[in-house]
């Protein structure tokens, strides 16, 4: 058993946390972009787009993220694509987040009264203009809480990337624990670091919510 001081452990964990942040950022941006495209596909013409999106969402919601991670990590090499753990985790989390965010945002768009589509359509606005100026600004307001809720889950879900050998925060915690045999202290510390990453998200969301509801 090696005895390490906190001042030695913490920097090591923070190095891992850096990767967690990077992975989260990739999943946010990739997932957000993907979900946005899925949303347009779902509501736009032609109609089979909606069916395809529905199927995609069903499949990704109905399978464990862990298995999606495995399938990308072991599946892409079969197609001749070399994948690093970061790339595999980034791709898997992007696919996963796209599906969930698309479904969350669909609920928000569906919550907008149908009269808003009628009125904007009757004025001659095309689909993308309706979305841009009428539907999405209203949907955004109700989308903030569930979206942020999901993003905090996503930050924590990056821990699964440790399973394909990616050395993010949880993996770093495991490594340190194996050396120090102080699981409670180390994992407590790891949890605290996750919390400090998630808290600003919910905090910003509250401010954003307040701002959006004032603009009425």
């Amino acid at each position, binding site marked *: 058993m090696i005895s390490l001081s906190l001042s030695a452990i913490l920097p090591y964990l923070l190095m891992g946390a850096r990767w967690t942040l990077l992975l989260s950022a990739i999943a946010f941006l990739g997932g957000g972009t993907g979900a946005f495209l899925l949303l347009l596909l779902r509501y736009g013409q032609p109609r089979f787009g909606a069916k395809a999106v529905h199927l995609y969402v069903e499949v990704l919601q109905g399978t464990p993220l862990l298995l999606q991670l495995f399938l990308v990590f072991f599946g892409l090499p079969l197609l001749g694509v070399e994948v690093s753990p970061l790339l595999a985790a980034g791709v898997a989390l992007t696919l996963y987040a796209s599906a969930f965010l698309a479904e969350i945002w669909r609920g928000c768009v569906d919550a907008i009264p149908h009269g808003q589509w009628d009125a904007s359509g009757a*004025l001659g606005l095309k689909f993308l203009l309706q979305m841009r100026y009428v539907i999405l600004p209203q949907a955004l307001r109700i989308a903030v809480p569930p979206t942020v809720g999901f993003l905090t889950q996503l930050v924590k879900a990056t821990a699964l990337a440790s399973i394909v050998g990616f050395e993010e925060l949880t993996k770093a915690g495991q490594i340190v624990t194996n050396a120090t045999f102080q699981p409670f202290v180390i994992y407590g510390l790891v949890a605290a670091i996750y919390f400090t990453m998630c808290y600003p998200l919910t905090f910003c969301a509250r401010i954003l919510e307040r701002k959006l509801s004032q603009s009425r």
Partner: protein
Amino acid sequence: MQTQSNPTPSENPPTMIELRRVSKWYGEFQALKEVSLTVRKGERVVICGPSGSGKSTVIRCINRLEQHQEGQILVEGVELTPGFKNIELIRREVGMVFQQFNLFPHLTVLQNLTLAPQRVRKLSRKKAEELAMEYLTRVRIAEQAHKYPSRLSGGQQQRVAIARALCMEPHVMLFDEPTSALDPEMIKEVLDVMIELAEDHMTMICVTHEMGFARTVADTVVFMDHGQVVEVAPPKTFFSNPKNERTKLFLSQVLVH
């Protein structure tokens, strides 16, 4: 004002909208049964009938908020075929006012009015705002321009909705029960605006239960029941000498007071 317009529509004004044996189904339910209707330029048509008779469906088919399945609909000579592209080009010429107003709650009154002129007609912001203020003044609500719709009364909201449609400078206006969601004391302010529009020779198709409006403003009254056009007549004949039994029954029910 109802007297100077010719009681029998002359052959001169061109046809604006024509429906030829239009049918529509919602699943098993047939909402429209071979509806035929011709509306000429400057004509003011009121469609009445019991609820569920297909009145709203007819006008929603004219700007394709609903699609018909059989028959033909022509708007200014252009047929709305099943795969019709660029429906926006038709819609910008056909204004519509809804029962529930459907103003955009996240935009101010002024922004509600300028959105489509800026984005669809590509007017500059300044031009669009001038136009908007002109129509807001016309519906006597200019002082509310910078408020959000939720701050206005129902009657004011509906007048804003009318102004919003007029900002596209449409050739035809469709009204889908514009006063049905209003408190009684606000109905008049909306009807007054509509009467002024009619006096300016706007082509109008209006689904309404306001029989007084039909009597004074309409050139033609259409009575619908069970998805069919039952009777078409000038208001004078329609109210004093209805031909069809169903029309008589309907009128006896709505004109009791």
